[in-house]
Protein backbone atom coordinates (compact mmCIF):
# COMPACT_ATOMS: atom_id res chain seq x y z
CA UNK A 1 0.00 0.00 0.00
CA UNK A 2 2.80 2.38 0.95
CA UNK A 3 4.61 1.50 -2.26
CA UNK A 4 1.43 2.21 -4.26
CA UNK A 5 1.14 5.60 -2.59
CA UNK A 6 4.77 6.34 -3.44
CA UNK A 7 4.21 5.45 -7.09
CA UNK A 8 1.09 7.60 -7.18
CA UNK A 9 2.98 10.52 -5.66
CA UNK A 10 5.80 10.06 -8.17
CA UNK A 11 3.32 10.12 -11.06
CA UNK A 12 1.62 13.23 -9.66
CA UNK A 13 4.94 15.04 -9.27
CA UNK A 14 5.93 14.06 -12.81
CA UNK A 15 2.68 15.40 -14.21
CA UNK A 16 2.90 18.61 -12.19
CA UNK A 17 6.50 19.30 -13.17
CA UNK A 18 6.34 18.34 -16.80
CA UNK A 19 2.74 18.95 -17.86
CA UNK A 20 3.55 22.37 -19.39
CA UNK A 21 6.43 20.91 -21.40
CA UNK A 22 4.38 17.92 -22.57
CA UNK A 23 1.46 20.16 -23.57
CA UNK A 24 3.78 22.52 -25.41
CA UNK A 25 5.34 19.62 -27.33
CA UNK A 26 1.97 18.17 -28.23
CA UNK A 27 0.45 21.42 -29.46
CA UNK A 28 3.37 22.98 -31.33
CA UNK A 29 2.29 23.05 -34.98
CA UNK A 30 5.83 23.02 -36.30
CA UNK A 31 7.10 22.13 -39.70
CA UNK A 32 9.20 19.52 -37.92
CA UNK A 33 6.07 17.64 -36.89
CA UNK A 34 4.51 17.69 -40.31
CA UNK A 35 4.89 14.51 -42.30
CA UNK A 36 5.45 16.52 -45.50
CA UNK A 37 8.98 17.88 -45.82
CA UNK A 38 9.01 21.65 -46.10
CA UNK A 39 10.76 21.57 -49.50
CA UNK A 40 7.86 19.56 -50.95
CA UNK A 41 5.34 22.08 -49.61
CA UNK A 42 7.43 24.88 -51.11
CA UNK A 43 7.77 23.05 -54.40
CA UNK A 44 4.00 22.75 -54.66
CA UNK A 45 3.63 26.53 -54.46
CA UNK A 46 6.75 27.47 -56.36
CA UNK A 47 6.58 29.00 -59.79
CA UNK A 48 8.40 27.31 -62.68
CA UNK A 49 12.07 28.35 -62.78
CA UNK A 50 12.22 28.70 -59.04
CA UNK A 51 15.57 27.97 -57.38
CA UNK A 52 16.42 24.37 -56.58
CA UNK A 53 18.59 24.51 -53.50
CA UNK A 54 18.90 20.77 -53.18
CA UNK A 55 21.59 18.15 -53.68
CA UNK A 56 20.95 14.53 -54.57
CA UNK A 57 18.12 12.34 -55.70
CA UNK A 58 14.65 13.61 -54.80
CA UNK A 59 13.49 9.99 -54.35
CA UNK A 60 16.19 9.09 -51.81
CA UNK A 61 14.70 7.33 -48.74
CA UNK A 62 15.96 10.00 -46.33
CA UNK A 63 15.43 13.75 -46.76
CA UNK A 64 17.45 16.16 -44.67
CA UNK A 65 16.46 19.81 -44.55
CA UNK A 66 19.12 22.20 -43.27
CA UNK A 67 18.41 25.79 -42.23
CA UNK A 68 21.69 27.61 -42.56
CA UNK A 69 23.40 31.00 -42.59
CA UNK A 70 26.46 31.40 -44.84
CA UNK A 71 28.23 33.67 -42.36
CA UNK A 72 27.59 31.59 -39.22
CA UNK A 73 30.80 29.78 -38.13
CA UNK A 74 28.89 26.72 -36.84
CA UNK A 75 27.17 26.40 -40.22
CA UNK A 76 30.57 26.56 -41.92
CA UNK A 77 31.98 23.92 -39.63
CA UNK A 78 28.88 21.74 -40.06
CA UNK A 79 29.22 21.98 -43.83
CA UNK A 80 32.95 21.31 -43.96
CA UNK A 81 33.07 18.48 -41.41
CA UNK A 82 29.71 16.79 -41.79
CA UNK A 83 27.72 17.75 -44.87
CA UNK A 84 30.67 17.52 -47.25
CA UNK A 85 31.32 13.90 -46.18
CA UNK A 86 27.60 13.18 -46.30
CA UNK A 87 27.30 14.58 -49.85
CA UNK A 88 30.25 12.45 -51.03
CA UNK A 89 28.92 9.33 -49.37
CA UNK A 90 25.18 9.09 -48.66
CA UNK A 91 23.92 11.78 -51.06
CA UNK A 92 26.04 10.43 -53.92
CA UNK A 93 24.80 6.90 -53.19
CA UNK A 94 21.16 7.97 -53.31
CA UNK A 95 20.46 7.41 -49.61
CA UNK A 96 19.96 11.04 -48.62
CA UNK A 97 18.37 14.03 -50.35
CA UNK A 98 19.78 17.28 -48.99
CA UNK A 99 17.60 20.40 -48.98
CA UNK A 100 19.15 23.76 -48.14
CA UNK A 101 17.05 26.56 -46.63
CA UNK A 102 18.44 30.04 -46.20
CA UNK A 103 18.04 31.44 -42.74
CA UNK A 104 20.30 34.53 -42.78
CA UNK A 105 20.59 35.99 -39.31
CA UNK A 106 20.16 39.72 -38.79
CA UNK A 107 23.41 39.96 -36.81
CA UNK A 108 25.52 38.89 -39.80
CA UNK A 109 26.24 41.79 -42.15
CA UNK A 110 26.70 39.82 -45.37
CA UNK A 111 24.76 36.59 -44.88
CA UNK A 112 21.65 37.97 -46.63
CA UNK A 113 23.75 38.96 -49.62
CA UNK A 114 25.42 35.53 -49.67
CA UNK A 115 21.95 33.93 -49.62
CA UNK A 116 21.07 36.04 -52.69
CA UNK A 117 24.10 34.71 -54.59
CA UNK A 118 23.31 31.11 -53.63
CA UNK A 119 19.64 31.48 -54.57
CA UNK A 120 20.49 33.07 -57.91
CA UNK A 121 22.95 30.24 -58.57
CA UNK A 122 20.19 27.75 -57.72
CA UNK A 123 17.96 29.39 -60.36
CA UNK A 124 20.44 28.34 -63.05
CA UNK A 125 21.27 24.94 -61.56
CA UNK A 126 24.62 25.95 -60.06
CA UNK A 127 23.67 25.75 -56.39
CA UNK A 128 26.01 22.99 -55.26
CA UNK A 129 29.19 24.71 -56.51
CA UNK A 130 28.28 28.14 -55.17
CA UNK A 131 27.06 26.71 -51.83
CA UNK A 132 30.41 24.94 -51.35
CA UNK A 133 32.39 28.03 -52.47
CA UNK A 134 30.59 30.28 -49.98
CA UNK A 135 31.32 27.94 -47.08
CA UNK A 136 34.90 27.25 -48.23
CA UNK A 137 35.70 30.96 -48.24
CA UNK A 138 33.64 31.82 -45.16
CA UNK A 139 36.65 33.29 -43.40
CA UNK A 140 37.40 35.62 -46.33
CA UNK A 141 34.34 37.35 -47.82
CA UNK A 142 32.83 38.55 -44.50
CA UNK A 143 35.92 40.78 -44.12
CA UNK A 144 34.89 43.17 -46.90
CA UNK A 145 31.67 41.67 -48.29
CA UNK A 146 33.26 40.79 -51.63
CA UNK A 147 31.25 37.62 -52.20
CA UNK A 148 31.29 38.05 -55.97
CA UNK A 149 34.97 37.10 -56.23
CA UNK A 150 34.44 33.68 -54.65
CA UNK A 151 31.28 32.94 -56.63
CA UNK A 152 33.11 33.85 -59.84
CA UNK A 153 35.88 31.43 -58.93
CA UNK A 154 33.48 28.55 -58.46
CA UNK A 155 31.55 28.59 -61.77
CA UNK A 156 32.10 29.29 -65.47
CA UNK A 157 32.24 32.94 -66.66
CA UNK A 158 29.05 32.41 -68.68
CA UNK A 159 27.12 31.16 -65.64
CA UNK A 160 28.57 33.94 -63.52
CA UNK A 161 27.21 36.47 -66.01
CA UNK A 162 23.77 34.84 -65.82
CA UNK A 163 23.80 35.10 -62.03
CA UNK A 164 24.89 38.73 -62.22
CA UNK A 165 21.96 39.33 -64.56
CA UNK A 166 19.51 37.80 -62.07
CA UNK A 167 20.86 39.96 -59.24
CA UNK A 168 20.95 43.18 -61.32
CA UNK A 169 17.93 44.73 -59.61
CA UNK A 170 18.94 43.76 -56.06
CA UNK A 171 20.03 47.14 -54.72
CA UNK A 172 18.05 47.23 -51.46
CA UNK A 173 19.20 45.49 -48.28
CA UNK A 174 18.67 41.72 -48.48
CA UNK A 175 16.06 39.99 -46.30
CA UNK A 176 17.22 38.50 -43.01
CA UNK A 177 15.45 36.64 -40.21
CA UNK A 178 14.39 38.80 -37.26
CA UNK A 179 14.63 38.02 -33.57
CA UNK A 180 10.97 39.07 -33.13
CA UNK A 181 10.00 36.69 -35.99
CA UNK A 182 8.55 39.39 -38.23
CA UNK A 183 8.46 38.53 -41.90
CA UNK A 184 11.06 40.59 -43.79
CA UNK A 185 10.04 42.86 -46.69
CA UNK A 186 10.38 41.44 -50.18
CA UNK A 187 12.15 43.69 -52.69
CA UNK A 188 10.04 43.18 -55.83
CA UNK A 189 12.88 44.30 -58.08
CA UNK A 190 15.09 41.47 -56.78
CA UNK A 191 13.83 38.11 -58.13
CA UNK A 192 15.56 35.98 -55.48
CA UNK A 193 14.29 37.75 -52.34
CA UNK A 194 10.87 36.10 -52.34
CA UNK A 195 12.54 32.66 -52.13
CA UNK A 196 14.78 33.71 -49.26
CA UNK A 197 11.77 35.12 -47.40
CA UNK A 198 9.93 31.85 -48.08
CA UNK A 199 12.79 29.94 -46.40
CA UNK A 200 12.83 32.35 -43.46
CA UNK A 201 9.09 31.90 -42.92
CA UNK A 202 9.54 28.10 -43.04
CA UNK A 203 12.29 28.50 -40.47
CA UNK A 204 9.96 30.47 -38.19
CA UNK A 205 7.46 27.60 -38.40
CA UNK A 206 9.99 24.92 -37.34
CA UNK A 207 10.94 27.03 -35.23
CA UNK A 208 14.61 27.60 -36.03
CA UNK A 209 16.20 29.15 -32.93
CA UNK A 210 19.81 28.81 -34.01
CA UNK A 211 21.76 27.87 -37.10
CA UNK A 212 22.43 25.28 -38.31
CA UNK A 213 19.15 23.52 -37.58
CA UNK A 214 18.19 20.39 -39.45
CA UNK A 215 15.18 18.13 -39.76
CA UNK A 216 15.28 14.54 -40.99
CA UNK A 217 12.37 12.87 -42.77
CA UNK A 218 12.09 9.16 -43.36
CA UNK A 219 9.16 7.04 -44.58
CA UNK A 220 6.77 9.99 -44.36
CA UNK A 221 7.72 10.75 -40.76
CA UNK A 222 9.64 13.76 -39.49
CA UNK A 223 12.11 13.57 -36.63
CA UNK A 224 12.52 16.46 -34.17
CA UNK A 225 14.68 19.35 -35.31
CA UNK A 226 18.30 19.32 -34.08
CA UNK A 227 20.68 22.26 -33.77
CA UNK A 228 24.42 22.56 -33.67
CA UNK A 229 27.31 20.65 -35.11
CA UNK A 230 26.86 16.90 -35.35
CA UNK A 231 29.84 14.89 -36.58
CA UNK A 232 29.46 12.73 -39.66
CA UNK A 233 30.03 9.34 -37.90
CA UNK A 234 27.16 10.05 -35.49
CA UNK A 235 24.82 11.40 -38.18
CA UNK A 236 25.68 8.41 -40.37
CA UNK A 237 24.86 6.09 -37.47
CA UNK A 238 21.42 7.69 -37.20
CA UNK A 239 20.83 7.29 -40.95
CA UNK A 240 21.92 3.63 -40.74
CA UNK A 241 19.50 3.05 -37.87
CA UNK A 242 16.68 4.53 -39.96
CA UNK A 243 17.62 2.54 -43.06
CA UNK A 244 17.76 -0.71 -41.08
CA UNK A 245 14.19 -0.32 -39.79
Amino acid sequence: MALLAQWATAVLITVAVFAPAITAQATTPTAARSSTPAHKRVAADAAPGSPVKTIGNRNAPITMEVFSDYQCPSCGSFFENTLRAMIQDYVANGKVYLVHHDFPLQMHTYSGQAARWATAAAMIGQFQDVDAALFDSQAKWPVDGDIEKYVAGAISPANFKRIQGILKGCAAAPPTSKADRTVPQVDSSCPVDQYIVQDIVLGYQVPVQATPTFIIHYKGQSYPASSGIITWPILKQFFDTLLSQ
Partner: protein
Amino acid sequence: MTQNEPRGNLARTLLLLGRLALAAIFLFAAYAKLKPQAAMPWSGSSIKTSLSLFAMQVDSYQLLPPQLVSPAAHFLPPFELCLGLWLLAGVLLRYASLITTLLLGAFFAVMVRTYMAGLEINCGCFGPGERLGPLTLLRDGSLLALALAVTIGAFLQGRKRRTESAPVPPVSAPQRAD
Protein backbone atom coordinates in the same frame (compact mmCIF):
# COMPACT_ATOMS: atom_id res chain seq x y z
CA MET B 1 5.84 13.09 22.79
CA THR B 2 9.05 15.10 22.69
CA GLN B 3 9.47 18.61 21.25
CA ASN B 4 11.76 17.25 18.50
CA GLU B 5 9.19 14.78 17.20
CA PRO B 6 7.15 17.17 14.92
CA ARG B 7 10.39 18.53 13.49
CA GLY B 8 11.58 14.98 12.85
CA ASN B 9 8.30 14.13 11.10
CA LEU B 10 8.58 17.22 8.90
CA ALA B 11 12.17 16.35 7.96
CA ARG B 12 11.14 12.78 7.09
CA THR B 13 8.22 14.04 4.95
CA LEU B 14 10.43 16.53 3.11
CA LEU B 15 13.02 13.85 2.50
CA LEU B 16 10.33 11.53 1.15
CA LEU B 17 8.92 14.23 -1.16
CA GLY B 18 12.39 15.21 -2.38
CA ARG B 19 13.27 11.59 -3.06
CA LEU B 20 10.01 10.97 -4.94
CA ALA B 21 10.44 14.17 -6.97
CA LEU B 22 13.95 13.10 -8.01
CA ALA B 23 12.68 9.61 -8.83
CA ALA B 24 9.89 11.05 -10.98
CA ILE B 25 12.27 13.38 -12.78
CA PHE B 26 14.74 10.62 -13.59
CA LEU B 27 12.01 8.23 -14.71
CA PHE B 28 10.57 10.94 -16.97
CA ALA B 29 14.02 11.82 -18.34
CA ALA B 30 14.65 8.17 -19.24
CA TYR B 31 11.18 7.83 -20.77
CA ALA B 32 11.61 10.99 -22.86
CA LYS B 33 14.89 9.70 -24.29
CA LEU B 34 13.67 6.16 -24.96
CA LYS B 35 10.16 6.86 -26.24
CA PRO B 36 9.51 6.24 -29.94
CA GLN B 37 9.87 9.25 -32.23
CA ALA B 38 7.91 10.18 -35.32
CA ALA B 39 4.77 8.16 -34.48
CA MET B 40 6.60 4.82 -34.28
CA PRO B 41 5.18 2.17 -31.93
CA TRP B 42 7.25 0.93 -28.95
CA SER B 43 9.69 -1.71 -30.18
CA GLY B 44 13.37 -2.57 -30.03
CA SER B 45 13.84 -0.78 -33.32
CA SER B 46 12.10 2.39 -32.13
CA ILE B 47 14.22 2.47 -28.95
CA LYS B 48 17.36 2.04 -31.07
CA THR B 49 16.27 4.96 -33.24
CA SER B 50 15.54 7.13 -30.19
CA LEU B 51 18.97 6.33 -28.74
CA SER B 52 20.63 7.21 -32.06
CA LEU B 53 18.75 10.51 -32.02
CA PHE B 54 19.91 11.10 -28.45
CA ALA B 55 23.48 10.33 -29.57
CA MET B 56 23.25 13.31 -31.93
CA GLN B 57 22.31 15.53 -28.97
CA VAL B 58 25.23 14.19 -26.93
CA ASP B 59 27.51 14.80 -29.92
CA SER B 60 26.36 18.40 -30.30
CA TYR B 61 27.93 19.22 -26.89
CA GLN B 62 31.32 18.68 -28.60
CA LEU B 63 32.70 17.13 -25.44
CA LEU B 64 33.32 13.49 -26.32
CA PRO B 65 35.18 11.95 -29.27
CA PRO B 66 32.78 10.27 -31.77
CA GLN B 67 33.76 6.77 -30.61
CA LEU B 68 32.59 7.58 -27.06
CA VAL B 69 29.41 9.44 -28.01
CA SER B 70 27.40 6.38 -28.90
CA PRO B 71 28.33 4.33 -25.79
CA ALA B 72 27.51 7.35 -23.59
CA ALA B 73 24.16 7.87 -25.34
CA HIS B 74 23.27 4.18 -24.98
CA PHE B 75 24.31 4.08 -21.32
CA LEU B 76 22.69 7.25 -19.95
CA PRO B 77 18.92 6.63 -20.45
CA PRO B 78 18.94 3.07 -18.95
CA PHE B 79 21.11 4.39 -16.11
CA GLU B 80 18.62 7.20 -15.46
CA LEU B 81 15.83 4.62 -15.46
CA CYS B 82 17.65 2.45 -12.89
CA LEU B 83 18.47 5.48 -10.76
CA GLY B 84 14.82 6.60 -10.85
CA LEU B 85 13.66 3.15 -9.72
CA TRP B 86 16.33 3.03 -7.01
CA LEU B 87 15.24 6.42 -5.65
CA LEU B 88 11.63 5.32 -5.76
CA ALA B 89 12.42 2.17 -3.80
CA GLY B 90 14.29 4.21 -1.18
CA VAL B 91 16.78 1.42 -0.49
CA LEU B 92 20.25 2.63 0.55
CA LEU B 93 19.05 6.17 -0.07
CA ARG B 94 22.35 7.74 0.95
CA TYR B 95 24.15 6.09 -1.96
CA ALA B 96 21.32 6.60 -4.45
CA SER B 97 21.07 10.31 -3.66
CA LEU B 98 24.85 10.72 -3.68
CA ILE B 99 25.09 9.18 -7.16
CA THR B 100 22.16 11.37 -8.27
CA THR B 101 23.92 14.49 -7.00
CA LEU B 102 27.16 13.57 -8.73
CA LEU B 103 25.33 12.86 -12.00
CA LEU B 104 23.32 16.09 -11.87
CA GLY B 105 26.49 17.99 -10.94
CA ALA B 106 28.24 16.59 -14.00
CA PHE B 107 25.26 17.45 -16.24
CA PHE B 108 25.12 20.96 -14.84
CA ALA B 109 28.86 21.55 -15.30
CA VAL B 110 28.69 20.38 -18.93
CA MET B 111 25.65 22.57 -19.61
CA VAL B 112 27.28 25.67 -18.11
CA ARG B 113 30.47 25.05 -20.09
CA THR B 114 28.47 24.63 -23.31
CA TYR B 115 26.38 27.73 -22.69
CA MET B 116 29.44 29.82 -21.84
CA ALA B 117 31.12 28.60 -25.04
CA GLY B 118 28.19 30.06 -26.99
CA LEU B 119 27.06 26.78 -28.54
CA GLU B 120 23.41 27.04 -29.54
CA ILE B 121 22.25 23.46 -29.24
CA ASN B 122 19.40 21.38 -27.90
CA CYS B 123 19.69 20.49 -24.22
CA GLY B 124 18.73 16.83 -24.70
CA CYS B 125 17.79 16.67 -21.01
CA PHE B 126 14.21 15.50 -21.52
CA GLY B 127 14.31 14.30 -25.10
CA PRO B 128 14.78 16.27 -28.29
CA GLY B 129 13.60 19.75 -29.17
CA GLU B 130 14.48 21.77 -26.06
CA ARG B 131 17.05 24.52 -26.51
CA LEU B 132 19.86 24.92 -23.98
CA GLY B 133 19.43 28.34 -22.39
CA PRO B 134 19.13 30.22 -19.10
CA LEU B 135 15.85 28.50 -18.21
CA THR B 136 17.25 25.00 -18.67
CA LEU B 137 20.30 26.01 -16.59
CA LEU B 138 18.03 27.36 -13.85
CA ARG B 139 15.96 24.16 -13.87
CA ASP B 140 18.97 21.86 -13.76
CA GLY B 141 20.62 24.01 -11.08
CA SER B 142 17.45 23.67 -8.98
CA LEU B 143 17.44 19.91 -9.49
CA LEU B 144 21.07 19.77 -8.37
CA ALA B 145 20.20 21.75 -5.23
CA LEU B 146 17.30 19.38 -4.54
CA ALA B 147 19.53 16.33 -4.99
CA LEU B 148 22.12 17.84 -2.66
CA ALA B 149 19.45 18.54 -0.02
CA VAL B 150 18.13 14.97 -0.27
CA THR B 151 21.68 13.60 0.03
CA ILE B 152 22.39 15.67 3.14
CA GLY B 153 19.00 14.69 4.60
CA ALA B 154 19.61 11.02 3.88
CA PHE B 155 23.03 11.06 5.54
CA LEU B 156 21.67 12.93 8.59
CA GLN B 157 18.78 10.51 8.90
CA GLY B 158 21.16 7.56 8.61
CA ARG B 159 23.38 8.96 11.32
CA LYS B 160 20.41 9.60 13.60
CA ARG B 161 19.15 6.06 13.06
CA ARG B 162 22.57 4.63 13.90
CA THR B 163 22.77 6.74 17.06
CA GLU B 164 19.31 5.64 18.18
CA SER B 165 19.94 1.96 17.54
CA ALA B 166 23.39 1.89 19.15
CA PRO B 167 23.42 -0.27 22.31
CA VAL B 168 23.39 1.79 25.51
CA PRO B 169 26.58 1.06 27.48
CA PRO B 170 25.86 -0.55 30.88
CA VAL B 171 25.97 1.89 33.74
CA SER B 172 28.79 0.84 36.02
CA ALA B 173 28.04 0.63 39.71
CA PRO B 174 29.37 3.56 41.68
CA GLN B 175 32.58 2.59 43.36
CA ARG B 176 32.55 2.72 47.02
CA ALA B 177 35.22 4.81 48.50
CA ASP B 178 36.69 2.88 51.27
